[in-house]
């Protein structure tokens, strides 16, 4: 018999609304699952009392016939979303005791739809990293092999989703932080177009790239989650004032006539494991067999994506993280009594080494002498890359690519700075960051295994065409189900 925590979000919603089981029962099942898997270190804060209270209230609403669309559905929230009255740290010591007096728009939208929170999920400090080893709460373990990383920065969200420790979770992405951990943990991760969801109340890293998205058990679940997360918000000046489509209506198996692109520049990448490469080719062939047109596209500037990211993200972080000053909120460490020394000590003790490294690099690149060489140059190449994507989407509806080129590294390899970690990291950057630089939506769908570890395939469409992303993602998920 399927246990309650094993159900997809869609199945859970159906069961709750038809009163097959109660929200209290579902919530208790997830709480038990979280308690049984604490060794993964996926949650950094458990809010079980609050969750049980919310579940009781949800059951009352359902009984009274007032159920909202996600009434009583238990979610896990990346610890980057500000949650009113509930500690939010971005997994950094500088915010270790921060209790936001306000709620992020995305979480508020989900609570308005009836969902409830089980707790806050581990992540790389300030979402900077792809390994989930830089959190001030310690690394997250991959549920498939506890010696390995879950990917990052949304590592807690992906691990919790894979281990049924939440019905669905929230992640967020700047370069690849939803798609990569989803791929490494064998779950679905959806990164919407930049501008689709409000960033209000999400702790900023790189403001021209940050975007929230769901990590879920199925593609349909991601479609349902996004429907309730997205929408215009006057509190975020780059949040698009566009209608939010009913993404569930896009979940179709039929791909006849769909134009599926693959990127020529990814064809001969050394370092992609043959099993991953074969899985990727098999997915392309599966679409072809179902009547899709498979088309090669060229996006020459993809080779610069990792570098654009390294420059823009570090520069924008150097600017964004200036707000942690020991005055208004967060950690304060007094120095020799001067204001200057208080800043130095607070930030010196509050930030981890990775953050300091990025702030120093970012400050250098933003200096008057270097600004044009690095920051402006990154924005110029980004324009070229953006234009090439726009051109490619004149030829195809969706672009398919691998995400993680091999089984994830071990936590020990990361902590020891083994060469394989940076080699794998560079390849992941190359495969994932072009899409982030272009601000397009994409989904990671589990597509096979390599050395006993899962890997995903990504499908990305043009800006604000999440419907095609869900259509192609759902179709791929169903094709692969048929294989089993």
């Amino acid at each position, binding site marked *: 018999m399927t246990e309650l925590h094993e159900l997809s979000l869609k199945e859970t919603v159906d069961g709750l609304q038809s009163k097959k089981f109660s929200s209290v029962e579902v919530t208790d099942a997830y709480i038990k699952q979280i308690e049984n898997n604490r060794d993964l270190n996926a949650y950094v804060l458990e809010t079980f009392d609050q969750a049980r209270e919310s579940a009781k209230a949800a059951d009352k609403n359902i009984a009274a016939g007032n159920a909202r669309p996600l009434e009583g559905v238990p979610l896990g929230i990346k610890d980057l979303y500000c949650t009113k009255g509930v500690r939010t740290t971005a997994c950094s010591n500088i915010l270790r005791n*921060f*209790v*936001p*007096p306000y709620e992020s728009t995305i979480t508020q939208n989900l609570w308005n739809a009836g969902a409830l929170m089980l707790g806050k999920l581990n992540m790389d400090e300030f979402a900077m990293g792809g390994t989930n080893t830089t959190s001030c709460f310690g690394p997250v373990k991959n549920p498939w092999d506890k010696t390995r990383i879950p990917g990052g920065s949304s590592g807690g969200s992906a691990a919790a989703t894979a281990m049924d420790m939440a019905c669905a979770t929230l992640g967020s992405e700047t370069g690849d932080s939803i798609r990569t951990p989803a791929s490494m943990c064998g779950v679905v991760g959806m990164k919407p177009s*930049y*501008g689709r969801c409000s960033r209000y109340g999400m702790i900023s890293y790189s403001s*021209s790239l940050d975007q929230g998205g769901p990590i879920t058990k199925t593609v349909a679940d991601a479609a349902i989650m996004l429907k309730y997360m997205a929408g215009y918000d*006057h509190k975020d*000046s*780059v949040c*698009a004032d566009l209608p939010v489509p009913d993404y569930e209506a896009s979940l179709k198996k039929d791909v006849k006539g769909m134009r599926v692109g693959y990127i020529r520049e990814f064809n001969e990448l050394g370092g992609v494991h043959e099993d991953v490469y074969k899985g990727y080719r098999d997915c392309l062939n599966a679409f072809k067999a179902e009547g899709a047109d498979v088309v090669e596209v060229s996006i020459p500037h993809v080779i*610069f994506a990792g*570098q*654009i990211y*390294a*420059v823009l993200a570090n520069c924008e972080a*150097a600017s964004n993280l*200036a707000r942690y000053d*020991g*005055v*208004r*909120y*967060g*950690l*304060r460490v*007094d120095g020799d*009594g*001067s*204001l*200057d*020394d*208080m*800043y*130095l*000590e607070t*930030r*010196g003790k509050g930030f981890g*080494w990775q953050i*300091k*490294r990025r*702030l*120093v*690099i*970012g*400050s*250098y690149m933003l200096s008057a002498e270097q600004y044009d*060489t*690095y920051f*402006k*140059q*990154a*924005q*110029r*190449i*980004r*324009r*070229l890359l*953006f234009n090439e994507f726009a051109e490619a989407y004149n030829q195809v509806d969706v672009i398919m690519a691998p995400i993680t080129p091999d089984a994830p590294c071990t936590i020990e390899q990361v902590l020891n700075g083994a060469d394989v970690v940076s080699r794998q990291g560079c390849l992941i950057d190359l495969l994932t960051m072009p899409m982030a630089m272009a*601000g397009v939506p994409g989904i990671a769908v589990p597509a096979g295994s390599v050395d006993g570890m899962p890997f995903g395939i990504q499908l990305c469409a043009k*800006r604000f065409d999440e419907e095609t992303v869900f259509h192609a993602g759902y179709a791929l998920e169903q094709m692969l189900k048929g294989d089993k």
Partner: protein
Amino acid sequence: MAFTKEKIKQLAYITRVKVTDEEAELIVKDFEGTMAWLETFISADTKGVEPLTSFMNVAMPFNKDEVKEGDQAELVVSEAPEKEGTFFVVPKVVE
């Protein structure tokens, strides 16, 4: 440009973050690697290309100049590490 430990410490001061000697040495190494990696990037041909600063091809929206959630001074200072009434307290900056 050579990146020395002193140069890194100077940059760290500009961004107001204290780094230890050991951290400064690690950042020197990292800097050298990053700068070498960025050489092809710096020399990429971008003549005449307009920098992409935002995806959103719309004018920045203006909110009306009106109070929506006012009188919340206590809430605003609620997370301050040091406060006096509804004021943030900072180390003395003038004699």
